[in-house]
């Protein structure tokens, strides 16, 4: 079944059928209804690829996330998909596995398939890569910083300020020996978190102990291994550990328990992301609430603005608020802090 047969059966031109499908307002109601009835009766579905070629628009966007095992990215993806779907777009999900080569390949494939735009989450691309993409005139929006200053529309939080606040909170809880467990990725964001960590300690007059900065994979296992290293420091064992993601924090908590120590009482733990399960840990994980879902919906909104807006977009950078989510694992004593 093709458009010519519909036209023939309806007794109208191919152009009219096309207008019924794509600009129904421009067709007389009587004709429109007649054509639609025949389309329904014959079960005609327009060829999606051909349609994309005609309109130079496929109503499809690509979403690149580093990992599907990390629930933080799932929440971002959920937000993106929600907005895109509401506006009639299909989202293609690509996993980069924190591998920049894979990311580059995916982007080119998506562009070759004429998708309307791409969202890059915690991208590893360099500025030169971004310049290449810009030349191909595909709409691109970042969620979280990439490496460098690309001047692309971006949704992000202030990772530096958030980490600074988190470590200050641990200091206020009375902890002095504070370590940081950070993931090898996302690289830019973690560098900022380390800076915030260092500043908070410096302001408190505490010198940086290089043994207290431990890097590993951004996974539960990575957090476990990093924490075992820290807990093996004997007298120098930290009394608080700030992890740059909740996944790492879960691994840290596991390691503390395996060392016959108590989370919060012996070693306080602070995470980052506030993924949904962090509230179900025992004790409940204190963490930095990163508005993951909202970053997803805001990123999709920005991208669709770029795709659809003729007069340009009003906001090219949306910085969302992160806030401390104080629960039990940080060892604080004031209940009111858990309410606000």
């Amino acid at each position, binding site marked *: 079944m093709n458009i010519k047969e519909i036209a023939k059966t309806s007794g109208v031109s191919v152009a009219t059928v096309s207008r019924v499908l794509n600009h129904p307002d421009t067709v007389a109601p009587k004709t429109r209804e007649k054509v639609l009835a025949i389309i329904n009766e014959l079960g005609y579905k327009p060829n999606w690829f051909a349609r994309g070629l005609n309109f130079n628009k496929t109503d499809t966007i690509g979403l690149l996330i580093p990992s599907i095992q990390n629930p933080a990215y799932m929440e971002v993806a959920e937000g993106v998909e929600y907005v895109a779907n509401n506006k009639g777009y299909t989202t293609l999900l690509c996993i980069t596995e924190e591998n920049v080569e894979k990311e580059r390949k995916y982007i080119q494939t998506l562009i070759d398939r004429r998708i309307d735009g791409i969202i890059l989450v915690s991208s590893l691309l360099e500025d030169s890569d971004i310049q290449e993409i810009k030349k191909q005139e595909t709409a691109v929006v970042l969620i979280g910083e990439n490496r460098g200053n690309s001047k692309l529309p971006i949704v992000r939080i202030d990772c530096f300020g958030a980490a600074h606040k988190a470590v200050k909170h641990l200091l206020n809880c009375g902890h002095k020996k504070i370590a940081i467990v950070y993931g090898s990725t996302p690289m830019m964001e973690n560098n900022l978190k380390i800076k915030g960590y260092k500043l908070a300690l410096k302001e408190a007059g505490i010198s940086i102990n290089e043994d207290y900065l431990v890097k590993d994979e951004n996974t539960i296992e990575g957090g476990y291994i990093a924490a075992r290293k820290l807990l093996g420091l004997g007298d120098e064992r930290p009394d608080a550990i700030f992890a740059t993601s909740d996944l790492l924090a879960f691994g840290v908590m596991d390691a503390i328990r395996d060392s016959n120590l108590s989370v919060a009482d012996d070693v306080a733990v602070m995470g980052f992301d506030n993924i949904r399960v962090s509230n179900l840990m025992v004790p409940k994980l204190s963490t930095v609430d990163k508005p993951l879902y909202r970053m997803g919906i805001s990123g999709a*909104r920005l991208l669709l603005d770029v795709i659809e807006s003729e007069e340009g977009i*009003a906001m090219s950078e*949306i910085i969302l608020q992160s*806030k401390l989510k104080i629960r039990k694992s940080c060892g604080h004593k004031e209940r009111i802090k858990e309410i*606000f």
Partner: protein
Amino acid sequence: MKTNFLGLPLKNPVIIAAGPWNRDGENIRKSLASGAGAVITETIISEPNLDARPRIAYNGSGAQNIRLYSDVQIEGWEREIEIAKQDGGLVIASVSAHTPSELAYLAVKMEKYGADAIELGLSTPMGGALEVIASDPEEVYNMTRCVVENVKIPVIVKLSQNASNLSTVAKAVKRAGGSGVSAINAIRCILGVDIETNKPLLPTYGGYSGVPIKPLGLASVATIVQSVDIPVCGIGGIDSYENVLEYILLGASAVQVGTSLLINGRSHITKIIHDLERWAEERGITDVDDIKGKALDNLKSFEEIKIEPLYSHVKDIDCIPGCNKCINSCMYEAIYRNEDGEIVVDPNLCTGCGLCTFLCDARKLYLGW
């Protein structure tokens, strides 16, 4: 009685405040049809959440609410505004967010969809932080500035009584290019505690609104008007046309009504406007400017108050049977009943505090020389 607020010509000064009664286009249209000068959308945020249940409590005079935000996504408001304005009328979009750029994004969208002005909600009394953003003038400046720079329509900022430095915050709004302020937002509260179950009436802190907060709203409006040259929209406990006039007489250019509508329905707004128009017509007043701020001249500093030898006098009016409020409340023991059971004030003991004149429901007592 017309007014010009933010450069918008309002047919009367009564604006229906942000709230669930204005949650979508159809409801805003109904609110406009009640006769209001303008209507403010339910507060729009970038990530609508499920509403808590229950979320509104009432104790007979004041209400506590927790998180009354629009559950319509920002994209959906394009259609809702179209529906809202199909019969004409002014619609102000209330938007709230945690950062300047997030706030500006919502404002830009609402301007594009046809909102006539933007009201910024920076002072949610629930959630947020222990210290409300609205108490930090720099934060308020940054938020307001970012929105003003990105939209062409007027921007007003809703201020919070939770901030003790209202004038400074209102000055920050003006410095940032805001066109006006509205005061006051609901106040952080716990409405009450069930003493049998040990449970607060609602499970978290919420915003207190309704008749009991009117005195706080009046004081806030007067303070802002006397310290900053910026149009003010008065909010808090307005339940009648007299309350509208109180705010205007203390300098408000317009007012907002919310809780009264929540309790009594939209027809109560129509009644307030009708009563207000009648009052104005009887006095030949056509514009809010004719009476705006007239009570401010009578608002004195403590030093300016002349001490007069006033004491309580008794009018020849019957008491309300069984009532002894004046006797019970007189801390100077100046009021008693004589052998015939009549109220008597001992002028030597009365110090003219005035409390009995307010307590007497029969209006039997007054202060005089």
